[in-house]
Structures are given as structure tokens and as C-alpha cells.
């Protein structure tokens, strides 16, 4: 096994160790997700734009895909969707499946992105949310749920995605902290050696 081949594994291990291990990462993710869920269940039942609320569980799933990669991101997104399903009128597993698939795709597509800029994350949060909400609605219709795909869907997708894109500015630091991401992730993306100095932005 070459040094380059083992780099992501070593980085992942270091990242988890740096954050206090897998248990601490899971606990941090639970904290961040619970905050998002509580805001969604309380504050954002009233605070809406054009009758549409943000999709904070989807935002957590999108950022998990971006910061934890397709493998771990899809797992986090699955659980985020599953808990969100508990509060939705649609069948259990619908949001979980949609979130996991989109987070996987998003994580895979963005794994080799060269930069990790704020504007890039905002755009990806918008696109990821749009994909998740659309996938959720289409999958729901596919399994026989009425009223998910109608003329209101484009408005819901656009407004919820825009809402999430704005809120991602606050959510990104929280998710970076939760997944123990940040510099290590960026370095992994650039395929830099472990002892390379950090770039100051």
C-alpha cells in the first residue's frame, strides 16, 4: 500500500482522534441535528417565506455529504432523514432514502473539488437541498403519496433551497465542528501530504 493510497484512511483516523473518537463525533452530530430539528419543529412552523419553511434536516444531510464524504455522509443523511420522517405524515423511510442517495451523490461529486469556499458551499447547499426535496417528493409520489408533486412543488423547492443556502452560513461551522472536518478535509481533497503546512486564506 502506497503512502498516497493510505492517506485518506490516515486522515480520517486522525480526524476522529482529533475530535475525541467516533463516539464524540456521533454525540456532536446528535447535538447539531437536535438543534436543527427543534428549530424546524418550533420556530420555522411560523417563520416562513411565501408559506415555505427551510428544510433544516435536509441541510444537515447536505452538509454531511459535503464534509464527511459519500460513505459517512450518506449514513448521517440517512439517520437525519429517518428522524425527520418520524415527524412527517409520509411513510417512515421516505426522507431517509432520499437524503441518503442525494448526500452520497453530493459527497461523491464534490470530493475532488479544489476549493472549499463559502460561496461554493452556499451554492452546494442550495443545489443539494433542491435535489433532496425534489427526490423526496418524487419518491413519495412513486410510493403512492398524493399531493407531493403539484404546481406548488417548484415554489417549495426554490424557497426551501434558498432558505437553506442562507442558513448554511450559520450551519457550516456547526457541521464542521460536528464531523471534525475543516482543515483535514480540505487537505484530503487537495491530496496534500500529511506534513504539508496549512494554507492561510
Amino acid at each position, binding site marked *: 500500500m502506497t503512502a498516497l493510497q493510505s492517506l485518506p484512511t490516515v486522515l480520517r483516523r486522525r480526524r476522529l482522534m482529533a475530535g475525541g473518537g467516533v463516539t464524540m463525533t456521533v454525540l456532536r452530530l446528535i447535538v447539531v441535528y437536535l438543534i436543527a430539528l427543534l428549530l424546524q419543529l418550533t420556530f420555522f*412552523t*411560523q417563520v416562513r417565506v411565501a408559506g415555505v419553511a427551510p428544510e433544516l434536516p435536509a441541510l444537515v444531510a447536505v452538509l454531511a455529504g459535503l464534509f464527511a464524504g459519500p460513505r459517512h455522509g450518506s449514513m448521517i443523511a440517512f439517520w437525519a432523514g429517518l428522524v425527520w420522517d418520524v415527524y412527517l405524515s409520509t*411513510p417512515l423511510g421516505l426522507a431517509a432514502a432520499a437524503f441518503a442517495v442525494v448526500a452520497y451523490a453530493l459527497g461523491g461529486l464534490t470530493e475532488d473539488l479544489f476549493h472549499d469556499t463559502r460561496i461554493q458551499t452556499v451554492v452546494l447547499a442550495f443545489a443539494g437541498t433542491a435535489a433532496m426535496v425534489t427526490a423526496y417528493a418524487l419518491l413519495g409520489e412513486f410510493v403512492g403519496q398524493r399531493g407531493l408533486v403539484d404546481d406548488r412543488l417548484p415554489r417549495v423547492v426554490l424557497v426551501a433551497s434558498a432558505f437553506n443556502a442562507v442558513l448554511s452560513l450559520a450551519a457550516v461551522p456547526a457541521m464542521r465542528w460536528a464531523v471534525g472536518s475543516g482543515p483535514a478535509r480540505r487537505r484530503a481533497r487537495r491530496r496534500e501530504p500529511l506534513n504539508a503546512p496549512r494554507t492561510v486564506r
Partner: protein
Amino acid sequence: MAVAQRSGRSRYRLLLLILTAATLLTLDFRGFGPLETAQSRVRDVLQPVVSAVDVVLGPVAEVWTVMFSYNDLQEENARLRDEVDRLSSADIRSAAQQDAFDRLLAATAVTYVEGVERLTATVLRDSPGNFDDDVISVDAGRRHGVAPGMAVVTAAGFVGRVETVDAVSSTVTAVSDPGLVIGVRLLDTGDVGLGHGMAGDPTRFVVDAGLRWPETGDLSELPTIGSAVVTAAGSRYPADIPVGRVASVEPAEAGLAQLVTVELSADVQDLGYVTVLLQAPGDEAPVGPDSPFPQESP
């Protein structure tokens, strides 16, 4: 090589997640008891936290609501000023109490159902999701004797059915939900059919199954516009609960069936209180060969 292996493992894991979701979906569709209990327990555990956060963030959310409904508030303000002029002796507090009392009376003064135990519940909040406009939460649950499938009404008529029941709260699917199928009877003609809400219009309901267009072509056999529509005796809910009034009748299925649009009698968008009819729900109203309703197929 290692990258390919990792990618393969990732795809394998995603496949497992999708299979898990598909299994959960199947179990949920089949009404697998332990799964529903588990969901209910999760909601029960989080309910006190949700309520506490709601109390803390409620005023902040109110500020947002006030900011973005300024025009509406201006109109309402003008109307209230007129009202204050007329009722100069009444203070705002008593007016608010009167409003709450009126809403409570509207929800509890149910005169059309007899012999059924009732429970008055307060509407807690609207749905948290973007696709659940027709779902509301009420503060009555398992501990109060509420069970899934029970009818929820106001004095105006049918509001919806209890969907999920937790310890102290429940969700109600409103009659405006296109997915909620209800057996109804048209009082004018006595015909019985199946209807559901109309997507995007929470004030209307459409009866699109079980009603045949008059073979003779005699339009006097059609229900009169404005005639009442109630729940049918064969439906899963108590009979004769007002649903609404006929708004239009159109031919459907190449002129062989009736498509009856009904103006709902209950306003499901502005509910303060509701009454839950504590009667064990009947079986799901079957659609098709086993339907208790007349088969009007050509």
C-alpha cells in the same frame, strides 16, 4: 486499487441504506405496530423539549410574523378600531377572551352527532414540513382516549381524521388532504360516493367515485347546487357529519360518472379548537369490488 475498493464499499453501504429504507417503508405501509410505537416513543421523548423551545422561540417567531404581515395587520387594525368604537366599554382582554370562547363554542357545539363521547382539544401547531399543509397537531393523545382513525370535527362539520397518536398529542389529517378518502352521502339525491380533498385548494372537496351520471340524461337527477353533503353510514366515521355543500357537478369518465365539487363547511386552515369523536373507527373504506358503496362502473 484501494480507491476502487473504498468506492465499492461506499456503494454497498448506500445499497444497504436504501434497502433498509425500503423495508421501513413497506412495514410502515402495512401498519407494523412496533414501528408505529417506536415513532410515537421518539415523539413522546422529544415533546417536552419541543414545547419548551416553542415557548422560548414563540415570541421571536411572532415578531417575524408581525413584520411580514404588516399590511394584513393594518387592515385588521382598522377593522378593530371600528370595533373598538362600537364597543368602547369592552377592553381588549375581554374581547380576546370572547374570541377564544367563540372559537371554543364553535368547536364544541356539535349538534349533529349523538351518542358519541367527545373530547375538546386545542390545536397546537401547524405541520413542520413543507408537504404537510393538511396536517395539524392537537393536545389530546393516548392518555385521553384518542385512537388513530377517529373523526375530528367542529360545529361547522368534518375537519379530519386522527392520524398518529402520542401520549399527550396527536396529529390530524385534514379533510382537505387529497390522500384522505371519505365516504359521503349527497342528501339531495341520497347517492353515496367516495371523495377526497383537492390539491392546492383547502376549501374544496371532490367526490369522484361511486356517482353515476343519469342514464336517461335527465339533469334533474343531479344534486342541486348548494345541497348538503354528509358522511355516509358506510364510511369509517359516524354518519351524517356535515362535510359541505355541492358547488358544482360535472360529467366525468366520458360522461358516465359525476364529478361533484363540494365547498367544505369547516375552515380547516384557521382552527383554534376541535372536537374529537371518541368512537372506535370502522374499517378502512375499501375502494373497488369490496366497497360497500354502490358500484357505478359502466
